């Protein structure tokens, strides 16, 4: 360690649970309002105003849930692994709590993506489940989430649980591209190319603008859910500290 370099100040502030608690209580209302507005707007737009797909008709409207959920489930895993790495390297408490909070949220969002994919499959492909490459990799992503979550809950010591979860999610992060590639490759081998519907036709703006609104809405929702979970986690772990005691007394 010849060279000692410093990260910017805000990076270290992030490590303070109290600072995170304060700043998140200020940010939460904004994100909550944005999430509600965007999700309501996007859902109404997608359900009632977007034109139906010329091939799939109205079942196409499921895309406004399915795609944002799938995108969010993947970014949530990235965040979990990155937060885990930060907590491993800089021993940052908040990063550890963020990583822990990501797992249940990500798992439920992955379930949402899978469920909507299956329901969408019924009118489109005529079957609830098709071993489509994207559905299969989403299923494996769900398995990875469940693994991290189970590992977290199996270890009693919070610090060790966080570190073990971080190692596992990093291993998963290295694996995700390999899994994705292998599943796609496997899919082309096994699946007769009858389902050309998975090849998205060029979407008109009336279709993709609400989709964009929904994706941003889902991210805002994720920020809210993550902050809420992390805040609860902070309270539970810092319950001996004076500022949490003051919060309790103030109630």
């Amino acid at each position, binding site marked *: 360690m010849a060279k000692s370099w410093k990260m910017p100040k805000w990076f270290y502030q992030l490590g303070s649970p109290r600072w995170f608690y304060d700043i998140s209580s200020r940010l939460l209302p904004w994100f909550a309002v944005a999430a509600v507005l965007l999700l309501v707007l996007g859902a109404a737009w997608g359900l009632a105003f977007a034109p139906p797909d010329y091939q799939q008709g109205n079942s196409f*409207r499921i895309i406004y849930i399915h795609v944002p959920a799938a995108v969010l489930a993947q970014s949530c895993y990235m965040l979990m692994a990155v937060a885990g790495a930060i907590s491993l390297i800089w021993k940052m408490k908040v990063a550890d709590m963020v990583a822990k909070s990501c797992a249940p949220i990500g798992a439920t969002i992955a379930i949402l993506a899978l469920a909507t994919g299956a329901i969408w499959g019924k009118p489109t492909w005529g079957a609830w489940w098709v071993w489509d490459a994207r559905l299969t990799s989403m299923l494996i992503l769900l398995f990875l989430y469940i693994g991290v979550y189970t590992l977290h809950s199996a270890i009693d010591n919070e610090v060790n649980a966080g570190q073990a979860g971080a190692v596992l999610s990093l291993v998963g992060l290295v694996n995700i591209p390999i899994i994705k590639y292998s599943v796609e490759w496997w899919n082309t081998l096994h699946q007769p190319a009858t389902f050309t519907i998975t090849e998205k036709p060029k979407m008109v703006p009336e279709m993709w603008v609400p989709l964009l609104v929904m994706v941003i809405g889902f991210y805002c929702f994720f920020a809210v859910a993550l902050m809420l979970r992390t805040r609860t986690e902070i309270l539970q772990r810092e319950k001996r500290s004076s500022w949490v005691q003051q919060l309790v007394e103030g109630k």
Partner: protein
Amino acid sequence: MHFESFSDLIEMGGHGPYVWTCYAIAATILIYNIVSPLLSKKQFFDEQTRRLKREQRISNSKS
């Protein structure tokens, strides 16, 4: 508005059940993710206030 009437919107040309189930599942999962941390936060504060009161009672009876 793409649909002629409200019943058209519910029906969605036969795809209604699929589409609405999806949106219902989505709403359930999103709400669960918001409500469950809020509930555990409330539980935390309940527990801590109870503990605080108990400790105060003990210290009062001692003095």
